[in-house]
């Protein structure tokens, strides 16, 4: 039997077998973006999602490691809990291409393509940096001959770029996902001031993200209502009631909505965790939808 199966076929079995268990499936799906993860990150993620104890996840993780689906890449730059640098793991190259192709086929092209996005945005950023250099050189050489009006206009355009790009930095390279509340509020502020960014997000998507944050943080609906500036006479019992209120009072204007959220938010335990999880979810969403191409266009119009 064994001799009849080609080497390639055995390889295929291995890949499908790895997907055969829901826990291994989750591990692979998490690592599909091609980034290195520490073991703890994977264990936390999978056991939180599946409700399975970490030891079980660890066993499956080691199985994947043994059969070469996952491999080690090196050590993390930051220190772990015990003061040591934890090891980093990635999907092996052939399994990465196999699973990426498989999921692309199964999900009609909706897989996590963050890695390619990063590569593309890095090269775009480089051209952008060059153009910034030329603009600055020109400004130095032209000096005071520019009229006041032109420079004020330039200044305004750049203002919108800066907030946008600092956000892109978070989305392209989320080295530190937002952990503390003040940073989260700052980021939300940047998002709210950028029309270009808010155009990317539909009202339904926003509703979904708010709901996810509501579930994740465990913030009660009444408190959430206060946070969003709803002082309703009727009692809010479910999230849907709240959303109806929001829709009627703000008339689907995301900017004022976010601004209100920022001004009302106080970094207490529950509210803080709500803001943090909302910001993280927004960043995750933008990381798959935003590119630097729009920004390049914006700069080149100067």
């Amino acid at each position: 039997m064994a001799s009849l199966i080609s080497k390639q076929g055995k390889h295929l079995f291995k890949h499908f077998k790895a997907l055969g268990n829901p826990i291994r499936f989750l591990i692979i799906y998490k690592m599909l973006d091609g980034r290195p993860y520490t073991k703890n990150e994977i264990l936390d993620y999978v056991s939180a999602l599946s409700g399975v104890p970490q030891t079980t996840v660890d066993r499956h993780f080691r199985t994947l490691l043994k059969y070469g689906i996952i491999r080690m890449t090196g050590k993390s730059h930051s220190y772990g809990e015990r003061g040591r640098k934890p090891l980093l793991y990635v999907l092996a190259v052939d399994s990465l291409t196999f699973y990426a192709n498989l999921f692309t086929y199964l999900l009609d092209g909706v897989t996590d393509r963050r890695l390619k996005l990063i590569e593309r945005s890095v090269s775009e950023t480089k051209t952008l940096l060059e153009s910034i250099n030329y603009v600055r050189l020109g400004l130095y050489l032209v000096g005071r001959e520019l009229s006041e009006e032109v420079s004020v206009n330039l200044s305004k355009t750049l203002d919108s770029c800066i907030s946008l790009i600092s956000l892109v930095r978070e989305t392209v390279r989320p080295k530190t996902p937002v952990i503390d509340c003040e940073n989260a509020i700052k980021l939300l502020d940047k998002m709210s001031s950028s029309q270009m960014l808010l155009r990317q997000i539909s009202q339904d998507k926003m509703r979904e993200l708010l709901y996810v944050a509501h579930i994740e943080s465990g913030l009660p609906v009444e408190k959430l209502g206060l946070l969003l500036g709803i002082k309703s006479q009727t009692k809010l019992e479910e999230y849907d009631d709240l959303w109806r209120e929001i829709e009627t009072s703000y008339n689907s204007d995301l900017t004022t909505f976010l601004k209100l959220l920022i001004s009302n938010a106080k970094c207490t335990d529950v509210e803080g965790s709500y803001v943090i999880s909302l910001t993280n979810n927004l960043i995750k969403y933008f990381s798959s939808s935003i590119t630097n191409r729009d920004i390049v266009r914006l700069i080149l119009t100067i």
Partner: protein
Amino acid sequence: MRVYDLTAPLCLEGDEIKIPKPKSAEISLELIGHDLLLSGTKLFKYLSNSIRFELHLGTHMDLPSTFAYQTVDPTNMPIDFFIREALIIHAERDYSKKSLTLDEVRNKINLGEFAELSRERRPALLFKTGMSKYWCRDNQKYMSFPGLSKSLIEFIAYELEPPFIGIDAISIDRTIEHRSLSLYTNIDEEFINILRMQEYTALLGHDILLRKNIYILENLDMNDIPQDVNRGLLIALPLFRFTSLTEKKTLITALPCRVIFLPEPEGSIEEVIKKLRALEKELSEIVK
């Protein structure tokens, strides 16, 4: 807008170029023409000068090949390397006794301006010591610059890592031949102590910086730059452009430069440039 010329002039005194002692330069005037073969008379005559000098003279940029570190090929250097923003550190004082230390200039340098940018985008760092007022006028005094201290040079090499630094003095190091005791009436106690401790290594500062690929722009003339100007665009273009036609390359150790400085424009444009700088900072963190 004022444009400053930071190139140190070659001062002519009669037929001689007046420069500090160990260096030498000659200038001569020649008649160049085509010989008319039959009659032996010269036709199409014109006058020309020839100057013979070492490359490490006047305003020049020391390359790593000075110490045989062949990390860069000067024939291939992109032109935008020489055009970049520069910060000026004002450190004018009497340099007859002590070298320039890190403590004196540390609070004038903002580490973030360097660390947040990727290395090729960092600004250049210029030191204004006020020594350039002695250039041509009192060469002995000009040569007696005690250099930058080792701590300052190590700070530049390992913390700031600018693409190049500039100084308006003869060198960033004190050199032993110019500082020998017989030449000077006032005794340099600091130097004697260094000698006594046997810690003197000739051109150590050069070695530290060039090993890290940080070029050194020496012998600038920064007399005209006022006290309040500390940032601007530096254009330090090499006088010559070399290309190599054969595979075997000649080692070029220094590039004589013509250096021009444009201070940062004031008013609303200054703000625009500041914003561009912030933008650059954000972007180069993505590229890093």
